[in-house]
């Protein structure tokens, strides 16, 4: 783990030593909370054969969509690809392996790794093909499905604010998977708009305590202006 006073670094340095073949969690639900600047740096840095864990595949040509289109992702663990026709195409033509999990189970599998457990018992999906694919166990006469925790080498997360030690605060619906992933990877790289001095964040407003965070990178607010969808109601 990085020393407290050595976590702030530039974006290229944060990304550079991620190896080929790494398993990487990526925060975000659609655009909000997606660490776009870190993903762009990962694209520029050239790592290949990646396994990504993200709720969705972003929209075409932004976020992890760029990495998928560049052929850099071998396996995507996700809950749905509904907004990205290129990702669906890559899955259908066999260039991208996709593993689907119900969204709440995906979140819980990540949370479980983040709290140091090996898995959990659930009744979600019983009577569907999801349950057919997993082991079950009887506990006091009740049948549960076994879901294993989902852990990663690296997590890339997006926070609204941070301090130099790596304490993180998320904003609005940009929270989503970020606080879960920020606990579930060996190495956690956070991008944020603003890095304060220790003591400047209200201590009871911190969502992720700095103990879980390896590196903090400051990014421009404009880097998040991606994936703007029209109001289509």
């Amino acid at each position, binding site marked *: 783990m990085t020393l407290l006073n050595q976590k702030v670094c530039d974006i290229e340095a944060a990304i550079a030593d991620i190896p080929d073949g790494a398993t990487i969690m990526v925060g975000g*639900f*659609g*655009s*909000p*909370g997606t660490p776009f600047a870190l993903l762009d740096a990962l694209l520029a840095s050239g790592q290949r054969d990646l396994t990504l864990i993200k*709720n969705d595949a972003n929209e075409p040509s932004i976020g992890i969509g760029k990495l998928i289109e560049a052929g850099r992702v071998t396996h995507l663990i*996700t*809950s*749905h*690809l*509904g*907004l990205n026709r290129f990702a*669906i195409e890559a899955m259908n033509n066999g260039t991208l392996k*996709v593993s*689907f*999990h*119900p*969204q*709440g*189970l995906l*979140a*819980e599998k*990540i*949370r479980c790794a983040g709290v140091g457990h090996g898995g959990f018992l659930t*009744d*979600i*999906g*019983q*009577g*569907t*093909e*999801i349950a057919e694919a997993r082991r079950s166990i009887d506990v006091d006469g009740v049948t549960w499905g076994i879901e294993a925790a989902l852990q990663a080498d690296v997590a890339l997360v997006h926070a*609204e604010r941070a301090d130099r030690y790596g304490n993180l605060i*998320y*904003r*609005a*619906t*940009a*929270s*989503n*998977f*970020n*606080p*879960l992933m920020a606990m579930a990877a060996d190495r956690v790289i956070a991008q944020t708009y603003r890095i304060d001095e220790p003591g400047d964040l209200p201590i009871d407003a911190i*969502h992720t305590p700095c103990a879980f965070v390896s590196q903090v990178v400051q990014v421009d607010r404009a880097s*998040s*202006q991606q994936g*703007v*969808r029209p*109001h*289509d*109601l």
Partner: protein
Amino acid sequence: MISDQQRMLTRAAREVIDGQIVNLGIGLPTRLFHYLPDDMDVLVHSENGVLGCRLLDSGEQPDIDMIDSGGTYITTRAGASVFDSATSFAMIRRSRVDLTFMGAFEVDQQGNLANWKIPGKFSPGIGGAMELAQKVARLVVLCSHNDKHGNPKILSRCQLPLTASRCVSRIITEKAVMDVTPEGLDVVEIAEGLSVEALREATDATLLIDESRLGRF
């Protein structure tokens, strides 16, 4: 003359009870936002992590960090909260969401729902549908009565992979309002101008119809 969809949405909005926590599924159910009365004290839940969302007023600037699960910009009302995905699904699995509306490819008289996958044709993933369908206290399906080829979507048994089994309470289509019962689908209301024979013709399930108490909508 109102469209079929407008009639369905107007009817579906009457399912919402003052004081409830409600989740609006992707697609047609999301449009229910427009049909909820302004004076109704309801918190709309969206599974990406917000309880108490509302549509933007005209001219109100979107906030890039505030969307609903369909990816549309929204904002919040008084009493709202935001939270992470694990907390959002805890709310769903603990049945703290009172009511949800979902679309369907197929729905059957046992209350089984298929709305996420057509093998070989359509499989973009499950999203939050499985947990919502299985755990929300009351699930109302809002869908067209027949597919675009005219085939019934209301069946005696679903053929497609299920989203959840025995989860549907009520089905609202442009043709009828039907409740799932052990004996079959109890038709509580039928569309204005539609005959009972025409409804039976368009449906591939056991329909229980008592014309003496059949409502119109």
